């Protein structure tokens, strides 16, 4: 194993694992607590639609993917609030729109669509230094936002209406959270892929949720599980020569399964008749 660490692509993959695991771990806590797990799928398809139109219009597909994602993510909150919907409905609407646009683009497009499809599948082993810097940038933004607005975010995760009633600018902060979720997904898409992102923002925080009644501990566990999923996934992928993305998903799912088994939240106190 050590000799493989000399390769730059492996070093980049390891750094991306740590950064992606950490960013997705934090954002995942918001996603799980706000119960909007499909934000990942919606964003990956928005990126796919953007990339398709980028290729069609001869504009950089990554730029178009980011533009489509950011536009979609900035619409989730306002659509939910204006229509008086659950954010999940709003995400479903966005998902259907971007999927329609993606299919339209695919119908108009001739030739290979591999570059666009990369946004759905991704490949952590072929990422560039530029991608790693992009990932570092979004990870720092997410961590800084969490530290600066920790108490406000906690209030929003507990109850949006109560947060607003105490005088917090809840609507602006809620939209920012949704925007950050979407942006994190977007910046990770080209690197890890839409499907992997979905598992990384749902499985580690869900596992952490099973193990603690403390939000701070949930953030820490979620980050640790996210990073472990990526690193162990990469290791097993190298050991058994299998696709890294798939193994990362399996490892994160296993971590969730183990957490579920040992979850104190599932424990049931037994009543002993002799003590009665």
């Amino acid at each position, binding site marked *: 194993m050590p000799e493989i660490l000399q390769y730059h692509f492996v070093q980049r993959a390891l750094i991306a694992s740590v950064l992606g695991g950490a960013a997705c771990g934090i954002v995942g806590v918001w996603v799980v607590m706000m119960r909007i797990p499909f934000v990942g799928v919606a964003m990956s398809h928005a990126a796919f639609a953007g990339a398709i139109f980028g290729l069609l219009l001869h504009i950089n597909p990554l730029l178009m993917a980011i533009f489509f994602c950011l536009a979609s993510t900035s619409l989730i909150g306002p659509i939910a609030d204006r229509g008086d919907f659950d954010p999940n409905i709003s995400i479903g609407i966005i998902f259907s729109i971007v999927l329609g646009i993606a299919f339209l683009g695919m119908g108009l497009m001739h030739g290979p669509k591999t570059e666009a499809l990369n946004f759905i599948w991704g490949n952590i082993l072929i990422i560039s230094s530029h991608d790693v810097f992009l990932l570092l940038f979004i990870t720092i933004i997410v961590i800084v936002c969490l530290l600066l607005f920790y108490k406000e975010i906690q209030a929003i995760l*507990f109850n949006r209406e109560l947060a607003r009633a105490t*005088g917090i*600018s809840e609507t602006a902060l809620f939209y920012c959270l949704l925007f950050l979720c979407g942006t994190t997904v977007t910046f990770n898409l080209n690197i890890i892929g839409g499907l992997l992102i979905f598992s990384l923002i749902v499985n580690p925080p869900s596992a952490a949720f099973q193990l603690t*009644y403390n939000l701070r501990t949930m953030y820490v566990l979620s980050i640790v599980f996210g990073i472990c999923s990526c690193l162990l996934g990469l290791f097993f992928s190298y050991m058994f020569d299998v696709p890294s993305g798939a193994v990362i998903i399996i490892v994160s799912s296993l971590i969730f399964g183990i957490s579920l088994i040992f979850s104190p*939240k599932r424990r049931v106190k037994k009543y002993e008749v002799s003590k009665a």
Partner: protein
Amino acid sequence: MKWEIAIKNATVSYRENIALKNISLNIKQGSFVAVVGPNGAGKTTLLTLINGLGRLQSGTIDIFGMRVNKKNINRIRKDIGYVPQHILIDPRMPISVYDVVMLGRCGRIGLFRNPGKDDHNIIDEVCEHVGITHLKNKPIGHLSGGEQQKVSLARALAQRPKILLLDEPTANLDPRAQNEIIDLIECIYKKESLTIIFVTHVLGQLPKVCSDAVLLKNGRIITSGSIHMVFTKELLSEVYDFAVEPPCMKMVG
């Protein structure tokens, strides 16, 4: 007279339903006002109008002498404690009672600042006053309905509000928990000299310290004033559409 809350010609509608129809109401500082009426009368809407959670379609609201608008609503909300009707809390929610009470300080502390020693002292004091000190480290989802309602009161008091809005705080509680909450509200009113607006549709649950009342029906104020004037058999029967005795009069009298 300078009113603490002055609502003028306010109308609120939710899609097809007009929840409040051109109502006007003035509330003076330090009064304990009961808002009474049948289900769907617009009681909760009236409360959410005061703290800006409800959307005003027409009319004006002045609180602390300030005209409420989008720019100053967050500043005004910091002085208004709000206890909503029983909210559903996931029993596995990873947030402790202490954190929920601290949530009440969020607006006061402001952005980019962490709770200081004063804030922690206020939380300790409020928890002791409400009688939830022993529950501080428990997960919020593990508490009973009555305990959660006490936490909700503690959170609202942690704001150090000038106005306290209570939306059916005793709903869904057993008789003992109802009495505890009512005693607590009376104690808070006497100690803190707040303006309290207490929404209920059960007359028997009104605290003894209640001085004024507003009768609501179908989004309209039927009458308002001192409880002796408002809680008459005729008016209550008109509001509830069947003969209702005014039990509160006995309590207050």
